[in-house]
């Protein structure tokens, strides 16, 4: 085993890490490597994996931490917001001293500090119809950890157009939902064809959410990402998992691709990314819309 040669080749950060594991990596990933389903080969798939996390809030927090810890080699983190005091009740990747800093930057820093094998790329900007395809194209798996409908529909449409698997999650009060939209097996619009009318949904700030709930849902999303990268197990493709946090009950709803879906159907009407109006009433007012 030539451990020496692998430590010497680190003048430029490698796009792909060296094929062998160094001593630290063998220890760091030992609980993965011993699993029959993973081994060194699976761990290498994780290190070669590129995952885009859209949203560095409540759902994004466990995603960033668990995916970085697992050794997912490249993490893109999109969030245009700055950390606010009211975020800290559930967005555990941020700390009190981070208030006022860009969430994407804080989350990327947390990923690097947790695991130096991870190349974390912050995008402190909003995903729009202009940049969505360009950003998403560079990743293998996309995670919807956003908190608003315009982003949710945009990410869904862009993933369908690019043929990328999308790991969807959403939380509200005590309830959560999670699914995997695998290419050809249905998408968010197969379930919810059009965004709700503005004013039909309570604003984000009014909604409220129990602090640990995004931890539950975001962690399930992280599980699904790892399984997709490993190619092991059965993902939530074709199944919407709903969590009732007050009664601690999971329910499952099966779905299939809708041939009439506006984006992944047989005759799609959505053929390029679209910007939707911001729906979150209070949030929109607060940003001066």
């Amino acid at each position, binding site marked *: 085993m030539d451990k020496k040669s692998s430590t010497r080749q680190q003048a430029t950060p490698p796009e792909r890490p060296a094929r062998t594991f160094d001593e630290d990596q*063998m220890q760091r990933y030992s609980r993965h490597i*011993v699993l029959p389903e993973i081994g060194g080969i699976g761990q290498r798939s994780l290190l070669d994996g590129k995952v885009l996390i859209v949203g560095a809030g409540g759902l994004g927090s466990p995603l960033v931490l668990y995916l970085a810890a697992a050794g997912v080699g490249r993490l893109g983190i999109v969030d245009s917001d700055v950390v606010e005091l009211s975020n800290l009740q559930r967005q555990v990747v941020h700390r009190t001293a981070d208030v006022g800093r860009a969430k994407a930057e804080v989350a990327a820093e947390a990923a690097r500090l947790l695991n130096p094998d991870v190349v974390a790329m912050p995008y402190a900007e909003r995903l729009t119809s202009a940049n969505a395809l360009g950003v998403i194209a560079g990743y293998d798996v996309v995670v919807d950890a956003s908190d608003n409908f315009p982003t949710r529909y945009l990410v869904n449409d862009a993933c369908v157009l690019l043929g990328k698997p999308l790991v969807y999650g959403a939380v509200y009060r005590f309830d959560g939902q999670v699914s995997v939209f695998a290419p050809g097996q249905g998408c968010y619009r197969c379930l919810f064809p059009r965004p709700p009318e503005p004013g039909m949904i309570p604003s984000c700030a009014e909604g409220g959410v129990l602090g640990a709930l995004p931890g539950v849902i975001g962690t399930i999303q992280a599980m699904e990402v790892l399984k997709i990268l490993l190619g092991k197990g059965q993902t939530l493709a074709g199944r919407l998992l709903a969590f009732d946090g007050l009664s601690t009950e999971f329910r499952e709803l099966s779905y299939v691709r809708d041939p009439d879906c506006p984006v992944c159907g047989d005759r799609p009407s959505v053929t390029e990314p679209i910007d939707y109006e911001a729906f979150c009433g209070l949030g929109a007012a607060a940003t001066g819309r």
Partner: protein
Amino acid sequence: MDLTGEVCPMTFVKTKLALEGMAPGQVLRVILDFAEAVESVPRSARNEGHRVLGVVQTEDNQWTVLIRRG
């Protein structure tokens, strides 16, 4: 492969990585001095479809395990 000084689970981690890098049918020779690993490494190797050819105590506190890549 000399794994003296290594304890669980690193004994199996390193054995497994070495086996993954070999062709099926090739034989890996592992030297261990951690008593528990003398049981656990062959058991784990069998679980993953490899064939344990033999375990030999070579010194007071040292064992050699021969594993054929499955």
